[in-house]
């Protein structure tokens, strides 16, 4: 089992969700985060003049997946979220030791 964390643009969330669902990947946890990377921050307006912020709003999508599904998930996300420009985001893959489903107590793959 792996965990992937995909940092995407907020406006892509709906389409990412749908493209993953098409492959049967439903379970996920998302949250709003602030990110910074190669994509520069943005300069917003003050009453007169402007100020620049260093972080941009992003969405983090977390999924715990069976090892076999990892590549599918990555593909689906890239398909939807890639514009080729800076700020498209990143996908991080982490090891997972175990999963427990609270409602049933099941562990491991069954619990995902």
């Amino acid at each position, binding site marked *: 089992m792996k965990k992937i964390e995909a940092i995407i643009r907020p406006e892509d969330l709906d389409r990412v969700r749908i493209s993953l669902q098409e492959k049967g990947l439903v379970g996920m946890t998302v949250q709003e985060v602030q990110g910074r990377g190669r994509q520069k921050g943005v300069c*917003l*307006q*003050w*009453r*007169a*003049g402007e*100020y*620049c*912020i260093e972080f941009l709003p992003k969405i983090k999508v977390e999924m715990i997946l069976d090892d076999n599904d990892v590549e599918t998930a990555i593909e689906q996300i890239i398909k939807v979220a890639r514009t080729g420009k800076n700020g498209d985001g990143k996908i991080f893959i982490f090891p997972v030791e175990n999963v427990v489903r609270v409602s049933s107590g099941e562990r491991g793959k069954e619990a995902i």
Partner: protein
Amino acid sequence: MNIKKSIYWSVIMVLLLLSVPAMAADTPKVDSGDTAWVLASAALVMIMTPALGLFYGGMVRKKNALSTIMFSFAILALIGVQWVLYGYSLAFGPDVWHIIGNLNWLGLNGVGQTPNTDYAATIPALAYMIFQAMFAIITVALISGAFVERIKFKAFMVFSLLWATLVYDPIAHWVWGTGGWLRNMGALDFAGGTVVHISSGVSALAIAFVIGQRKGFGKHAMEPHNIPMVILGAALLWFGWFGFNGGSAVASNGLASSAFVVTNTAAAAAALTWILLSSYHKRPSVLGAATGGVVGLVAITPASGFVTPMAAIVIGAVGAIISYYAMLFRGKQNVDDSLDVWACHGLGGTWGAIATGLFATTLVNSAGANGLFYGNPGQLVTQLIAVGVTWIYAFVMTVILAKIIDATIGLRVEDEEESVGLDISQHAEKAYA
């Protein structure tokens, strides 16, 4: 003969009959319509103070939101009591040497349900008093934009009380009090260009110098945490300003209507100008539209009882341009007048007071005067004197008060308290769960 006699007696009877209202005119009579308008106006001006709290509160960081809103709300409480106890007497009470009211009206002694014809012949003296109370309150609250996110709450309260007593009350007396020396000189200030906006705006600059910059000023972005709240505040300010300016006619008549019209017109013109300026420099700004509206309201305030709607467009638009570039300028200096009270109110009020000397016309208000453009350059000079005096008095007094407080109880919170935010450190509260 008989005819003559009949006429004679008829005339006498008729005069007798007429004499009843004539005598009534001697004891001033409350007009229900005028009173309705002034009471409604007082309510409208009251809502401006919490509205200012929202206007300012939306522009600070989340960790200081409550603290900033509190400045205005607390002033409503503090000056609401001060004014009734002695502030009104100092500002509007019987004149002493043309510079201050005496204390005869302490605790509103003698301020009753019949008119005081010195100030408003057709409304209860109490109505005039409470209308003026709202002006004193908002003026003190306006200053708070200068020192948000770093002042000690206690120091703020002490400063505000002293400032109201030693700066606002005297200036109000000079300009509006019977016997006040600027009033005697003929300075025109319909609803508070000098008394309200210059006094608060210049004092804001002064206290910003004394208290110093916020930590991280000019280094980190200080994001406005809730712009819809700013817009709500600006909208309620605009709404309340109809009472501020329209009510300053202290009657419900053509002059009040005229003041109402130029108020809306100047605000609209200024907001539009700010939208255009920001589009030119970057994008049409929402925060800018709200700011522009407020600046237009400030600029028209002293002129609102004296100028035409077309003049109001010019006054609003020029006011917006002045404040816009003043903000850009201020932002580049080392002065952290955080929410630009000086640029908005100090300069807006200054421009408005000068514009009154340019655009005032007795066609609008026969009790007023003509300005430069209507052939009376002397009025402009008078206005400039009133402006200059207010600038100097407000600045000097505020520096002195702020320094004294700083040296005694301390103006500023600890560094750590500032980092954590004033909501937690000063009030043990959080704006949002």
